[in-house]
């Protein structure tokens, strides 16, 4: 009996140890790495195209930072220069006809209204993002607030 128990334990242990081994060979399923085995480099997916149709997108809720409807590849936004502001800046919109950066962005942290963009709102892509032309891997169940507080429509059969 003891012999069988020992044998069973041996087989079971080997089985348990072997399990991750086979996973490693076949590759782990990981959202970021894909199915590449640990010792190998995953093949990166193709780079998606950035949406560039210049059409303003609907906002999902009133305070949403509007998304960027054009490509912004290699736009320089650093301590020296803000490329976005060369069209969306206060004194540039007349030439560019781009929507001006919201006036809320001119308020600094001490609640002073400045004549230019406040340092705390300087890095545009912290809130405003371009959209990539991809099929989303997971469906988004987000519900817009539009219509919130309105009487719910009765579903008719």
């Amino acid at each position, binding site marked *: 009996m003891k012999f069988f128990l020992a044998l069973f334990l041996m087989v079971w242990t080997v089985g348990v140890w072997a399990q991750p081994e086979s996973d490693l060979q076949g590759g782990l399923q990981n959202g970021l790495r894909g199915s590449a085995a640990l010792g190998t480099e995953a093949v990166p997916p193709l780079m998606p195209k950035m949406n560039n149709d210049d059409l303003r997108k609907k906002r999902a809720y009133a305070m949403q930072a509007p998304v960027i409807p054009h490509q912004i590849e290699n736009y*320089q936004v650093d301590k020296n220069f803000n*490329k976005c502001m060369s069209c969306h800046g206060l004194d540039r919109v007349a030439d560019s006809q781009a929507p001006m950066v919201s006036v809320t962005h001119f308020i600094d942290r001490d609640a002073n209204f400045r004549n230019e963009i406040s340092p705390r709102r300087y890095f545009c892509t912290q809130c405003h993002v371009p959209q990539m032309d991809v099929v989303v891997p997971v469906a988004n169940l987000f519900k817009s607030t539009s219509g919130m507080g309105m009487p719910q429509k009765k579903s008719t059969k």
Partner: protein
Amino acid sequence: MSLKKKFTEHSSNYWKTLSTPSKFFSLGFLTIGGFVAGIIFWGGFHTALELTNTEAFCTSCHEMRDNVFVELQPTIHYTNRSGVRATCPDCHVPHNWSDKIARKTQASKEIWGKLFGTISTREKFLDKRLELAQHEWARLKANNSLECRNCHNFASMDFTRQSKRAMQMHSTSLANGEKTCIDCHKGIAHRLPDVPAGAT
């Protein structure tokens, strides 16, 4: 003999040598020899000039290699799908001969800069960067963005293949000559310095 007289005598001797017909060499030797020598000198001059007009030459100095060349690399003019690449002289040296010589002569000041280490460190470069950039902007503004237009011909632009914004700008301000490429496309190949308000 006074120094002045000596000088006059000497120079008149030289002039006499130059102006008298050749005593030893045949006319054929002189014309054909002159022609061949001309080819060698001109060819040599042009080869040397073209050697200084390459990316390898520009990036042989650390000032260019470690600052502006690094910045060029991720941009569309260096890395792109079609494999067309604009190297340093494509944008910074005119292609026409007379303009090229003028620019090259002007660029001899850069040798002075190299010798005296005007931008020999990153810090010095950053301090001087705005001024250097403004020189290039002024040059491109003055020649109506000639170096851009060597490849990007306005007449060949298909606006329908451009984005709406690009089409809007190119068909108005660029078309009527009110703006030139560099007015909007500053910093397209290198990082921009902190440009003070109102500076061009």
